[in-house]
């Protein structure tokens, strides 16, 4: 293992980009050779997501392993849950009884997702995020529906784009179990705005959808997080992506 580490270090120095790619490749595979562990631990210590003071330093998503991906999902579920809790607590006067009932359903789905990740991650979970919904008018049905559509479509894109990063079968299945529920939400919300727009893939091309292939949105975390940033006050640090 020692010689392998020195080989890696040499390739880092001599091969530059190629060494980087090898490291990235190894970390993507979740292969923890001694050399790789050493290379990544230095970046870990700088941010130290496991010891951070979140209020001061923000939350850090370390994508070096599945826990980073799960924390990324946890962050998005926190955002969605916080949004629907506000929607359900003070529903816009324009909503029908049926819409209010379904928004209450969706609220509990997102709370269930949030709490699932919190429990599953245990000590590895990031802290609670502070949200910023100042751009949403919760008393206006159209404003709420527009925001709900944005959250759900982005959630679908995020899960679809992050699935390939997961290395554990169980987590991959869980992500699939959640994303289809998010897609059901997205379709329902879209139909409330315009009946029949449940899967208007042409309107989702900016999120990576492709109508010609019948493919839904899919975005990598580096594309998703900037889109979510306007709703999150807590600073999100990303490493090892």
């Amino acid at each position, binding site marked *: 293992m020692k010689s392998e580490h020195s080989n890696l270090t040499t390739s880092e120095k001599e091969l530059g980009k190629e060494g980087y790619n090898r490291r990235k490749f190894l970390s993507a595979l979740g292969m923890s050779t001694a050399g790789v562990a050493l290379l990544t631990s230095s970046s870990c210590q700088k941010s130290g997501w496991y010891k951070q003071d979140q209020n001061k330093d923000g939350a850090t998503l370390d994508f070096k392993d599945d826990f980073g991906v799960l924390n990324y999902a946890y962050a998005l579920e926190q955002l969605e849950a916080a949004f629907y809790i506000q929607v359900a607590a003070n529903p816009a006067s324009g909503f029908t009884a049926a819409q209010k009932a379904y928004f209450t359903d969706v609220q509990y*789905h997102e709370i269930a997702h949030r709490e699932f990740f919190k429990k599953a991650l245990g000590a590895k979970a990031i802290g609670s995020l502070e949200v910023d919904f100042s751009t949403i008018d919760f008393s206006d049905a159209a404003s709420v529906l527009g925001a709900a559509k944005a959250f759900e479509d982005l959630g679908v894109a995020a899960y679809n784009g992050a699935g390939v990063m997961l290395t554990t079968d169980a987590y991959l299945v869980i992500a699939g179990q959640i994303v289809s529920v998010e897609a059901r939400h997205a379709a329902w919300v879209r139909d409330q705005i315009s009946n029949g727009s449940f899967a208007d893939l042409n309107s989702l091309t900016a999120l990576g959808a492709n109508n010609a*292939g019948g493919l839904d949105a899919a975005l990598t975390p580096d594309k998703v997080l900037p889109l979510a940033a306007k709703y999150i006050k807590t600073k999100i640090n990303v490493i090892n992506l």
Partner: protein
Amino acid sequence: MNILGILDEIQKTDADIYDKISPRRHVMKNFYKMGKQLSFAALPLALSSMFTKAYGQGSTTPVNDVLNFALTLEYLEYHFYNHTIVGKDPNSAVKDVTFNFPNPTAQQAITTIRDHELAHVNLLKEALGSNARPALAYTNFDFRAGGTYDANNNYQMGGTFADVYTNYATWLKVATAFEDTGVRAYKGQAPALKGNPVLTTALQIHSVEARHASHLRQMVNAAGIPLKPWITYAANGNDTKVEAANAVYAGEQNTTQAGVEITNIAPGVTQAAAAESFDEFLTKAQVVTIANLFIKPAFKLS
């Protein structure tokens, strides 16, 4: 770590090898790239098993098997919807679709869904190339589930859903079952594609099927049969109350995920909310049993 030696050897002649096989790169954004991305799925056996190990897959199910399985399901969905839409054209030779959609928006929604299923068929066919399963035609299916047909494939009588093309409510039951089955089928195959760029494409199809399912369930509800866009709790998993579709929903009553009990995980998360918040997967064998109900004997899946 021999594999890394092999990859380093490859790197001497192909500097981009790590980029090419890294699961974090080249997330497939559209089907034009798919042929290229799939090239390693078509590698000779020895090399592809090396990649299987490299990606840490526990399953040895070849990627092509998963894609051909998906292709069969997409043919099934496509032909079901296409026959319906074609049959609604008064100038069409198809005369057995006699129910009426309640409004033009409903028919347009089904046309949209039909178009997506055709896109999925074409995408999977293109991705598989010469490895694609033989094409399936409308006449290879039996959407009445147990009907009898004459030598010219004209429907004679019988079947669990004998009135599928004459009764809108029956048609909705079958369509909803197909979409919910599709959602569960893709989910179940995800681990076999783990770490593979093809997984992203499969997930992109999967969530489109979930959008379809949500809309069809709203159509069912609009037709006066109460049903939510998401699958809620029922003792046997089947919230549609369509007994013939029990196999489609087996296990949807589950409320424990990765060892975590979801019911009461927070105030207000009832058993119904817990079941709704996570869809469940079906194994390939479960899906084959369901699909075979709608496939004529000579074409059934094994």
